């Protein structure tokens, strides 16, 4: 008899898991439960539709509902799984009762941290997550004159940029002293902040949220620096692992707040795997667990969970967390630790910074690229990087993530070979320049 694999959640991890399970065991009865109307779209693309860089929401979908059905994946839309029992191997499903499973994959994603202030239940507060709601909000944005973005998180940065592109008077409030202050350094985000100001955005750093003001709908955001009138507030608070259903069933969670898994994405419960924003995985530099990574992490983890649940053998590795984004007129990115984060954790480190160029100095469109490298003192193994420029940031972040994972040293990077071709690469690679600056600073 075919094994039944039930997946709770239809985001990147859930759909990745379902597809991988079906690929591993085509005879398996793969069933996905999602509380939403759709699965398998890119929520990360939503800010760019709001900003009009992407013309419509339809492009964010990976496949049609018919395509999933054609693959033999049985998706139950707008159907909430409210719990599961690992002894009886059943999932409690609204409208369907108890549904049996042989293998279970939890991919319940994240929730935004509650702002925890008065007025959080008012209309006019936008949490960017669900594509159908985003379609409705996109129409609302046509009539919005002034908006407040709450917190300079990665999504907050994208939404400030999008709203500015949209011609909306945009305020950003954040308790930190600069944007993304928990993850990046001020010299890296300074050009981004300058470009926002040039676009008319009003930045309120060192400013805490006190509440949302209004009768039924928000008309102002109350802050430590006074009220900011607005038609809309975009709440971009921290992503927290959605572990409610799993925890209630007795699945263990860890110190980062996510479901504990091993390299097979196997949880503490028998025949239960988990993947995506609801889990935590170890960081490759510190071996300390981290949670709330990117869609590409969630999808890859889903593939591992799905393959293994279906009977295959696929491992996941500790993460180095490359990241990057367009914010204002700039690209910023990095891998693992910034100076700020390393200092906060008390991780010993040495730093090298250099400014290079993205193309040959004489080639049209050449831009500056600032690279900062962090290394472990003594061994000089790379433990982090931060970058800002206008092109080539993502590729450098990916490369440096592999360098962190494989234990590459600053000495290796200082003598790295690089592509030299006037339209795409300069004589001196900015990464090599930063590594050479670090070595020069050490006097070696």
């Amino acid at each position, binding site marked *: 008899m075919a094994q039944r694999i039930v997946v709770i959640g239809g985001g990147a991890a859930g759909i990745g898991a379902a597809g991988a399970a079906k690929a591993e065991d085509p005879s398996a009865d793969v069933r996905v439960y999602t509380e939403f109307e759709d699965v398998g779209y890119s929520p990360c693309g939503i800010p760019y539709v709001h900003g009009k860089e992407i013309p419509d929401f339809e492009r964010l979908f990976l496949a049609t509902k018919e395509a999933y059905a054609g693959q033999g994946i049985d998706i139950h839309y707008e159907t909430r799984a409210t719990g599961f029992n690992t002894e009886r191997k059943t999932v409690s499903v609204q409208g369907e009762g108890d549904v049996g499973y042989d293998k279970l994959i939890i991919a319940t994603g994240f929730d935004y941290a509650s702002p925890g202030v008065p007025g959080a239940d008012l209309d006019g507060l936008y949490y960017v997550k669900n594509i159908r709601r985003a379609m409705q909000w996109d129409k609302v944005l046509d009539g919005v004159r002034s908006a407040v973005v709450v917190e300079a998180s990665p999504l907050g940065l994208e939404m400030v940029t999008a709203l500015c592109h949209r011609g909306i008077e945009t305020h950003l409030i954040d*308790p*930190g*002293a*600069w944007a993304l*202050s*928990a993850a990046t*350094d*001020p*010299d890296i985000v*300074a050009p981004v902040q300058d470009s926002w100001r040039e676009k008319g955005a009003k930045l309120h*750093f*060192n400013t805490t949220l006190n509440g949302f003001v209004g009768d039924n709908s928000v008309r102002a955001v109350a802050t430590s620096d006074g009220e900011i009138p607005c038609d809309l507030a975009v709440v971009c608070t921290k992503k927290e692992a959605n572990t409610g259903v799993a925890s209630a069933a007795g699945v*263990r969670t*860890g*110190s*980062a707040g*996510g479901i*504990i*898994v*091993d*390299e097979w994405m196997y949880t503490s419960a028998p025949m239960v795997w988990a993947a995506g924003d609801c*889990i*935590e*995985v*170890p960081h490759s530099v*510190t*071996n*300390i*667990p981290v949670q709330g990574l990117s869609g590409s992490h969630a999808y890859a983890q889903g593939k591992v969970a799905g393959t293994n649940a279906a009977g295959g053998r696929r*491992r996941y*590795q*500790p993460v180095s967390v490359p990241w990057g984004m367009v914010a204002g007129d700039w690209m910023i990115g990095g891998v693992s630790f910034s*100076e*700020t*984060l390393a*200092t*906060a*954790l*008390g*991780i*010993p480190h040495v730093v090298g910074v250099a400014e290079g160029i993205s193309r040959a100095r004489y080639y049209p469109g050449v831009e500056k690229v600032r690279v900062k490298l962090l290394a472990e003192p003594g061994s000089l193994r790379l433990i982090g990087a931060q970058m800002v420029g206008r092109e080539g940031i993502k590729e450098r972040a990916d490369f440096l993530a592999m360098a962190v994972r*494989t234990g590459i040293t600053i000495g290796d990077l200082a003598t790295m070979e690089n592509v030299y071709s006037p339209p795409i690469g300069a004589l001196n690679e900015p990464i090599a320049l930063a590594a050479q600056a670090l070595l020069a600073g050490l006097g070696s």
Partner: protein
Amino acid sequence: MVAAQEKVAAKYRVTPPARPRGREWFWLRVYVPLYRVVPWRARSAIMRRMPGSHRMTWTEAQRPRGPAI
């Protein structure tokens, strides 16, 4: 984190985090200096003893050495 931001802000001569108020003062001016005295090895050892995915099985990838061919 705020203490780290103060340090990095001073290095790059940018606006530092807001001055600590109330209970923040204790954490910033008493706890953080004490925390910084503890060596990283000791701190990371404590963090690694906390429950989490890092205490499960994660096999280190075997990397080949020498020329590929």
